[in-house]
């Protein structure tokens, strides 16, 4: 119990305190150590007066607002199509609507930069070849908004689809009987009723976009559009690095994020209109007639734009010797294709090391995080010890902290301590454990709730000790959930970029960072090749994870 609190303090509170301390001083921990402490609000004053910060904040807000608006349109449309219409292949559409969640943002951004860069972008090449006068430029604010909107629509989809599914269909039928058209019903009854879900999904996707580094780094940098995340990184990349200023900006980002997360939780816990009766409803599906082919078409377009097109772009760029494409014939000219980029990627010793490092970090994170989350989940859900409330709060706190901010915080926490964690893979793993703790604990809590308390009590009555009961009763019953949570943690850890950026050294290079390096090095072929390597790896791992959790779902069914 006390141990848990100590671990959490070590993982969450200490780095955040150091971050705050860093923001309040002008001391460079690397140069000066912590001997001289000169607390002041100067950094905040300077940061808040700085025009670059204003611009970055403004850009962040524009990009996230625009992206959120687009995400709402896409997410709401698809949830309505899937839950409320008779469009064919709804299972397929539901799957398509969730796919972007599995695409690493950095890879998506790289693919779209290959497709949509103003001069050499594949789309523009095709337009030119087709004699069309259209040009697109994704190295722009609108490009950022479009890519944000497309890839973060699933957050809105998840919330609204389940709200629609839980809504009593007679609420809509009553409106139709009362004389309202289907369209009017949608806007006066359906959408107002699921408004909490819409707002909640909106806020969540906004928060995620706000904290993302990969997409604005790839698409915003060429056009000199910096957002808060890229600006923070820029500060630490300068010579000498402005760690104090970075800490101050990171705190601003965190405050905005935390405010939005609190708002989202409040909306979620507020009265939910949709589930008034709390019973299962016969799903009501609107007969779209011939229009249902249009809605199915929309799903195909989305799949094509979000997955197929970027994948094709990566494949073309990765296997072509030169990306310059004169005409369509050249696109299919096999002589232009080779493995040369893959060879050069794997010639680089860093590549293999980054893959090994990433796997190591992933495994360490999954094991540490899994054990810790199990202990936390058990304490919160199953015991009545004093202080479990604060454990609950501490373990959900990182929800409100963007990955990048965690990275800066851990940097602050460990960089000044000689012989400490900085420069090892452990600092990455610990940062990831802290960052993904809320997701892991939440995933595990559901499996704890499924195990009836009496099963444990029966073991106590039989004379087992608390730990013995956990080992012989709780752990075996919860193991499917534990395995699922650990796999989730593993996948999240190996694709994490934001916090890695500040914590890696050349010895502890991870895949996501190296990919960004390749991109910034300007070699599109190598970048695309490495993106493909990463995507395939991730796809395989997610496949395994799915297979594992399907297996565990089955065994939960047996025990429950």
């Amino acid at each position, binding site marked *: 119990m006390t141990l848990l609190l100590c671990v959490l303090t070590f993982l969450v509170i200490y780095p955040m305190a150091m971050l705050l301390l860093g923001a309040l001083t002008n001391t460079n921990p690397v140069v000066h150590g912590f001997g001289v402490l000169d607390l002041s609000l100067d950094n905040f004053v300077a940061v808040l007066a700085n025009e670059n910060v204003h611009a970055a904040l403004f850009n962040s807000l524009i990009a996230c607002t625009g992206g959120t608006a687009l995400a709402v349109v896409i997410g709401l449309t698809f949830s309505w199509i899937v839950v409320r219409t008779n469009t064919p292949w709804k299972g397929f559409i539901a799957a398509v609507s969730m796919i972007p969640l599995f695409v690493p943002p950095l890879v998506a951004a790289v693919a779209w930069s290959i497709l949509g860069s103003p001069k050499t972008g594949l789309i523009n090449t095709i337009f030119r070849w087709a004699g069309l006068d259209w040009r697109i430029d994704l190295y722009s604010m609108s490009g950022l908004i479009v890519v944000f909107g497309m890839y973060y629509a699933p957050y809105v989809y998840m919330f609204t689809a389940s709200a629609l599914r839980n809504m009593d269909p007679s609420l809509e039928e*009553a409106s*139709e009987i*009362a004389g309202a058209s289907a369209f009017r019903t949608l806007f*006066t009854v359906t959408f*107002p*009723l699921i408004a909490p879900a819409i707002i909640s999904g909106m806020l969540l996707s906004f928060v995620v976009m706000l904290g993302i580094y990969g997409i604005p780094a790839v698409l915003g940098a060429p056009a000199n559009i910096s957002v808060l995340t890229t600006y923070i990184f820029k500060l630490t990349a300068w010579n000498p690095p402005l760690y104090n200023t970075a800490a101050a900006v990171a705190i601003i980002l965190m405050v905005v994020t935390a405010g939005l997360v609190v708002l989202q939780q409040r909306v979620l816990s507020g009265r939910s209109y949709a589930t008034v009766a709390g019973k299962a409803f016969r799903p009501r599906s609107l007969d779209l007639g011939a229009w249902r082919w249009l809605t199915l078409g929309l799903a195909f377009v989305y799949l094509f734009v979000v997955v197929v097109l970027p994948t094709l772009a990566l494949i073309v760029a990765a296997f072509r010797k030169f990306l310059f494409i004169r005409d369509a014939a050249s696109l299919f000219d096999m002589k232009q294709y080779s493995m040369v980029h893959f060879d050069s990627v794997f010639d680089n010793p860093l590549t293999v090391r980054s893959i090994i490092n990433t796997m190591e970090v992933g495994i360490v994170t999954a094991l540490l995080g899994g054990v810790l989350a199990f202990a936390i989940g058990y304490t919160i859900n199953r015991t009545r010890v004093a202080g479990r409330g604060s454990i609950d709060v501490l373990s959900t706190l990182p929800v409100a902290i963007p990955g990048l901010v965690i990275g800066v915080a851990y940097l602050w926490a460990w960089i000044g301590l000689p012989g400490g964690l900085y420069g090892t893979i452990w600092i990455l793993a610990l940062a990831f454990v802290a960052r993904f703790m809320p997701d892991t604990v939440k995933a595990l809590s559901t499996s704890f709730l499924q195990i009836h308390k009496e099963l444990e009590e029966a073991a106590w009555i039989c004379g087992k000790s608390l730990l013995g009961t956990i080992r012989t009763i709780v752990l075996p019953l919860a193991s499917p959930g534990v395995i699922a949570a650990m796999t989730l943690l593993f996948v999240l850890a190996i694709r994490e970029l934001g916090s890695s950026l500040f914590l890696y050294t050349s010895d502890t290079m991870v895949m996501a960072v190296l990919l960004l390096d390749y991109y910034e090095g300007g070699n599109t072929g190598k970048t695309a090749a490495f993106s493909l390597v990463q995507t395939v790896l991730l796809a395989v791992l997610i496949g395994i994870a799915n297979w594992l959790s399907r297996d565990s779902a089955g065994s939960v069914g047996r025990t429950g």
Partner: protein
Amino acid sequence: MSAALDVVDLHKSFATGRPAVDGVSFTVPAGEIVVLLGPSGCGKTTTLRCVAGLEHPTAGSISIGDRVVSAPGQGILVAPRHREIGMVFQSYAVWPHMTVRQNVVYPLKQRRTTRADADRKVAETLELVGLSEYADRSVVQLSGGQMQRVALARSLVYRPQLLLLDEPLSNLDAKLRLRLRDDLRRILKQTGMTALYVTHDQAEAVVLADRIGVMRDGKLLQMAPPADVYNRPADLFVANFTGASNLIEGRVAGRDGEFGVVEVKGGARVQAWLARSIAVGETVCVAVRPENVAIGTSNGSNAFTARIVGRRYQGTQTAYDIDLFGVRLEALELGTAARHEVGAEAPVSLSRDACWAYRDDKTATQE
């Protein structure tokens, strides 16, 4: 204003399973309340939803007033909102994001009613359902019974041609159900509304209906005034479903007009009303309501002696298990005193009007 409803040979099949509605025809004259009664899955709700236009019939036709609203054969299908009907749902379906007034005025907004006119109609209707003081409350603050009154007001405010009610009382607790049931009939009669009402509760059906239609397996078995359904059920299922739980098996020994003699296994003879198609010599089942087993009296043609084998005192009545020529029957005795002891013999008489013989159809009593 109120219009007649005419349903002709309605069929509705879903993708799987037997048809939900299988050749149902009936008419509801303007101003009449018809209740469709039956166990769950009998097709009553599907029939109602076809009338509403929320389900599309497979075959047959539905007309409201002079207008055909559903006739798949001729390709006619009028959208629910163009049918000028009102509907009250089992789950109330009041919109929780609106106040009582906003809920009730909603249908008027679709109909270009002037502001003053709408205000007057809303006030009148709220008065009618007894919610005048609640107009500006949010509906989530109301009790279930009040929510259902809001739903009723919302479907009456524009005086539709036809009101559909889909088990409107079954989500309410028992006491409230009784009150709203009586209010409902008063309000419907006061407004002269044509109403089609669906329920599985026979007590509700009897009180509310001008006529009851009993359904089973997608078919309409009997459509008649409540007293007829209770005193002359059309078949064994209707008899059983409406409470005639005692069954005596036997063989028809003679017939004289509507009535006849049924010979029971041990040789006893029971005078009974015979369903029309039954001939002498057929095996039949005689259905008797427990209330119609007169215990302690020995007048009339069917007078026997029975042995009391069980007694359950229920306060205002007593239920007895009696053994009558080897058949176990249930009998009800009204009153707060239980007059017969277990193990004693007692005279029992069955009025021949209350004994109904049907062709022995085993499947009828399984539900």
